[in-house]
């Protein structure tokens, strides 16, 4: 603990970097995955290819990706961009799937009703499909945000600063405290980010609370089934 207090400056710098590397890919991933997912849903054939290749992307070990990316992107080795791009790739790979699930979770009757009212496809997507897919989408986002927190630390193997540095340092200096503090901070960050997501979801989906208070119960099970397992 003494160590913690005497190194707060470095720790807060690493924490900020960690958070940055975890959050930015999440946002970028979302921006890329949503249109991709919608495209995959609309075009059966291309959709299969997109889902299949995103699955393959995910099997590339992150260590290899971190090493490879500077070569491919021409970035500097120590560039944080490498981690951000790598994690964005993973986030997209994960989010495409769960966004497809999220969009599929929208009651088809509601979709039909919206079409019947004369929504044009794009407008319907933003006004109906997307908002209604939020509960499932957020469930996926939460899983990914949490596991991103863990993934970011792998960058430390290659000298990219994050809380993972505390692990390397702790290992070489035979200093478990440092590792434990690193783990604890990562868990804390994950909790905070999760909380932020939960709050964001509450703000963005006021209607789903209305359901819980009164009226018929939603089949929650299916929503959980879709998301809990990924």
């Amino acid at each position, binding site marked *: 603990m003494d160590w913690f207090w005497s190194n707060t400056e470095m720790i807060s710098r690493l924490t900020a970097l960690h958070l940055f590397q975890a959050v930015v890919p999440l946002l970028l991933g979302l921006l890329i995955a949503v249109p991709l997912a919608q495209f995959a849903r609309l075009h059966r054939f291309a959709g299969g290819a997109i889902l299949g290749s995103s699955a393959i992307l995910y099997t590339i070990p992150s260590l290899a990706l971190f090493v490879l990316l500077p070569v491919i992107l021409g970035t500097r080795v120590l560039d944080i961009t490498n981690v951000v791009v790598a994690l964005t790739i993973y986030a997209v790979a994960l989010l495409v799937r769960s966004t497809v699930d999220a969009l599929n979770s929208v009651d088809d*009757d*509601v979709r039909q009703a919206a*079409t*019947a*009212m*004369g929504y044009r496809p794009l407008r319907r997507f933003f006004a109906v499909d997307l908002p*209604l897919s939020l509960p499932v989408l957020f469930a996926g986002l939460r899983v990914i945000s949490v596991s991103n927190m863990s993934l970011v630390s792998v960058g430390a193997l290659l000298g990219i600063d994050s809380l993972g540095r505390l692990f390397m340092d702790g290992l070489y200096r035979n200093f478990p405290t440092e590792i434990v503090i690193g783990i604890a901070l990562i868990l804390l960050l994950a909790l905070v980010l999760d909380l932020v997501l939960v709050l964001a979801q509450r703000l963005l989906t006021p*209607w789903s609370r209305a359901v819980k208070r009164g009226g018929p119960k939603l089949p929650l099970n299916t929503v959980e089934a879709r998301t809990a397992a990924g």
Partner: protein
Amino acid sequence: MIRFRGVTKSYGDTESAAVENLSLDIARGAITVFVGPSGCGKTTSLRMINRMVEPTSGTIHVDGKDAAGITPSALRRSMGYVMQSSGLLPHRSVLDNIATVPRLNGVPRKQARERAAELLDVVGLDPAMGKRYPAQLSGGQQQRVGVARALAADPPVLLMDEPFSAVDPVVRSELQQELLRLQRDLAKTIVFVTHDIDEATILGDKVAVFAVGGRLAQYDSPEGILRAPVDDFVAGFVGRDRGFRHLGFQPGAGVPVHPVQTLDPAELADPAVPVQGGWALAVDDGGRPLGWVPASSRETVTSPGQLVPGGSLHRRGESLRSALDAALSSPSGLGVVVDDNGAAAGIVRAGEIFELIEAARLRRGKALHGSAV
């Protein structure tokens, strides 16, 4: 107004067509009902009108214009659509749901909401419900909102796909009556899908009976379908009560209404007031029937609890069906007629009703076949 010509629809993955060579004219300002067993192509036919489904061949004209030439979204905004599951947008309040199509048409939010609030009233909902989300409403209330939403842009055409089939029978019949009431004022062109022949005959100005395989089996007035099903399929579908149902289309106005002795609560309580004839009708202070007092037990029957329960009531202006049912269900054999306030207005007798039915049949027979017996 809506004209199907040789319309066929096959879904890619099935051998037989969902709708087969359908030609049909749907009249302006009337309710046309598509009825038939499950899977016979009713929904498919309905959805081809607003191009939610595109015909494989054939044409559909709406108001003289080929629907295939109208932008789908514009076509759809000109038609209200109500379906079984209500299809309300779960993430929008009731008011915003109703305001959807006006908003799509560019009506300012405030104005669209005001109109929506009016419509809540039109469909018989408390305006306070406007702020709720669909999930906070009962099934019947959701359906009402669905109807309000379809009416919001004041479209000339309403397409309704089994809108009332998810609610329980009592609410369903309320909704049916409400729709008829609305239609009296609005005179929309309504295409209504149901698989319930009762609902079809209650609501339809014209009824199209679909057979499995997407074939149009009969297209006629409900009365025509009940009286003369063209084939065994339609006869079977119309079911065994069609004699009674058909009576529903014969006005009850001609049935002679006889006076009946009524006992108000004070008179009922006094055994000294005699029952003339076999039965007297006990009524409450407003004249509404409570039950029968048989002459033979006048002494013992002095309070409402002791009355012989009455039968169904025939409201003035209703059809022969309700008149006959009132007579048949009454323990006295006398069907009670009530006025619009529910007060007893007299009785009808089964024998006389039967004579009227017979007379009407003979008239029809003469008109059709020149025969009578």
